């Protein structure tokens, strides 16, 4: 029993360590990159706060003094790290509001978008993959392969634009951006979901093909189980293992996609906020939103790990 508990605890603990490392790296790299950008941070901030026409050297100097931007960089970084340890992400340099308050609303929107896109990608990718796997070598397999290569080869912004042109501009079925109701959720989540489904359908296809030809399924039939019982009891779970494992990798792609798709569709989420903060040189907001996204990936990966442990008893168990 204790060994079994350890089987679950060990990966969770290692994920926890990873989360700490992610926080440290994301904070430092974000900070370094922001300061590597050309242009004067104080000017950009003043422009953001008072409007581009109101900025002169005096306003910038006042800004610099107010925010302590003239202190050595190392001090500014250490100050941020010290605050993160106290679970304080600091204040936005533009609005002066706490970063956490700024992000709170946006996290919800991003979660809504990702939470719609993931199930949608499963809804699109898995049935296509299963059909291709069961009909391998025949026309449905080739059609799904072609579709998946096409979707994978087109970058998210191009795919998003194409959908926007087709569904909003030409057909006028859906609004092209913003967020007023559910209709605006369709295009960005579909763009994300198609990119994810391009990969998950391939993994599902390989997995289903392997299980369909495996002696496990053959024996299930020989035992006398009906085709439905054989597939339900011995096919699905075995086929789901690799699909689920790859989901963990896909989450990284999801974060990338969120940055692009939110910006493209003007979706008021955390990716959109990050891009905006970069233009404004709002360093604490950049660090804060990158940190939240990084931790989100670690958290979701931990959830995927846990799900893998649940469906695959071989994980973490020694052979007797």
């Amino acid at each position, binding site marked *: 029993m204790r060994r079994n508990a350890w089987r679950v605890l060990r990966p969770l603990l290692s994920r926890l360590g990873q989360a700490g490392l992610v926080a440290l790296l994301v904070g430092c790299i974000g900070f370094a990159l922001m300061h590597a950008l050309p242009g004067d941070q104080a000017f950009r901030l003043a422009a953001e706060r008072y409007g581009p026409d109101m900025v002169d050297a005096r306003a910038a100097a006042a800004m610099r003094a107010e925010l302590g931007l003239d202190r050595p960089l190392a001090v500014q970084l250490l100050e941020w790290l010290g605050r993160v340890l106290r679970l304080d992400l600091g204040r936005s340099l533009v609005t002066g509001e706490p970063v956490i308050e700024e992000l709170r609303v946006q996290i919800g929107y991003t979660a809504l978008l990702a939470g719609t896109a993931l199930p949608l990608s499963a809804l699109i990718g898995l049935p296509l993959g299963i059909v291709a796997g069961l009909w391998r070598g025949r026309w449905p397999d080739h059609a799904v392969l072609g579709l998946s290569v096409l979707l994978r080869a087109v970058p998210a912004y191009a795919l998003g634009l194409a959908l926007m042109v087709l569904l909003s501009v030409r057909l006028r079925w859906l609004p092209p951006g913003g967020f007023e109701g559910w209709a605006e959720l369709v295009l960005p989540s579909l763009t994300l979901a198609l990119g994810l489904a391009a990969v998950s359908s391939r993994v599902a296809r390989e997995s289903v093909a392997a299980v369909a030809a495996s002696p496990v399924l053959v024996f299930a039939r*020989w035992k*006398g189980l009906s085709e439905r019982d054989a597939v339900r*009891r011995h096919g699905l779970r075995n086929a789901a293992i690799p699909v689920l494992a790859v989901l963990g990798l896909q989450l990284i792609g999801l974060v990338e996609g969120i940055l692009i798709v939110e910006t493209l569709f003007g979706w008021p989420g955390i990716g959109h906020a990050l891009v905006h903060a970069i233009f404004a040189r709002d360093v604490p907001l950049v660090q804060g939103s990158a940190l939240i996204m990084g931790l989100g990936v670690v958290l979701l990966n931990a959830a995927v790990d846990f799900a893998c442990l649940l469906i695959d008893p*071989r994980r973490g*168990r020694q052979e007797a």
Partner: protein
Amino acid sequence: MSGHVQLRGLTVRAADGTPLVENLSLAARPGTPLVLLGETGSGKSLVLQAIMGALPPRLRRTGEVVLDGQPLPEGRARRGLWGRRIALLPQEPWLALDPTMRALAQVAEVCRLVRGMPPPASRAEAERLLRDLGLEGVARLYPFQLSGGMAQRLALAVLRAADAPLLLADEPTKGLDAERRDEAALRLRDEAGRGRTVIAVTHDIGVARILGGHLAVMLEGQVVEQGPAERLLARPAQDYTRRLVAAEPAQWPMPSAAPRRPAGEAVVAARRLGKRFQGRAVLEDVDIAVGRGETVAVLGPSGCGKTTLGDLLLGLLRPSQGEVRRLAGLAPWRFQKLYQDPPSAFAPHQSMREALRHLGRRHGLAPAVFGGLLDRLRLPPALLDRRPAELSGGELQRFALLRALALDPVFLFADEPTSRLDPITQREVALLLRELVTERDLGLLLVTHDAALARRMADRVFTIEAARLSPAGCAG
């Protein structure tokens, strides 16, 4: 219990019309196992698949399979009999059991879904079935936590759950070591003893001997001889059957009784050798030496550390304690290994010619070296242009031997070199290896689970038990 089976003129043809099984007429009844004995490619497994109605899609069957006076229905209707009337014990059951389901559940689901018992009764019945086969301790384990023998018993428990009168077994002992093999064969005989009709397919004469019953020897899709197993194995009438029986290691000639030259200087020697894996001692305090022109055999069941010992002597593994001395002043490739599974010891996309050319270039060998060895190992040069998948196991193992001998080894570690070969081929390869030891003055370490084979191959035989090496007794 019913279960009378008749095969009437059963023929299986490939898509191009080549007969793979030709005009087979056999009968099997409850209580007496029917055993089909033959080499790989003799069509014996196709017979079982034809009875199941599970032939690969491009093969065509003619002739009839009759069960209890009724010709078996075709297609979908045949599937309705699976589990209920006809059960097939799969080859290598550890691959056929669901790795994500506990042992008990795999048995209980048959009681519930095939026999329609309510869930609590299914569990109770499954527990009883596991107990009958001595598996009560593993009910909550997964298949990957079971040994090969236990997985085999579990697969049998699964089939017993549906209680079909006809039990087919396809190479029921494949992948098991000698002891487990005999157990598995005895268990199948038991199934027949319980009134089931058992039809088993094997290439192992030892298994056929244990199963007894009615024996049919198959060659190239035809039955060359059939009759009661005991009589047929004692007094085979056909030439092919005679060669098959003679191929059993126990029937091989013993090495010449006159003491051979005393073994030369030791090519490898180990003192107080020990190896641990993750804290578990696999070998402890082993002293062993292999001299020139000598064969030393190490016997033991799967997982006892035989292969580990060979790999330590070769320097492929680092010992946890003790030391290994190899003959000084020689390149490491003068100490060679012959692997158990020939196909996995070759790159699948390379022809033999290419593989040997690479070897020759790497070691600066003259092509004549290979020419001489091809002759000696009786490998026709035409085989050089084939890839591993196009060669038989015996041919491939002889190429592996050629590859090792080309480097002029002083020591060869042969890890179960013939256990995946058909009996007649096994005898050829093993006796060839025996000749080469003397001829090339080579030290051979032979690892095997077959005591009779070890006796006939080796000058000295050891066993490994509880991580210790000791001289073997005189049995076998």
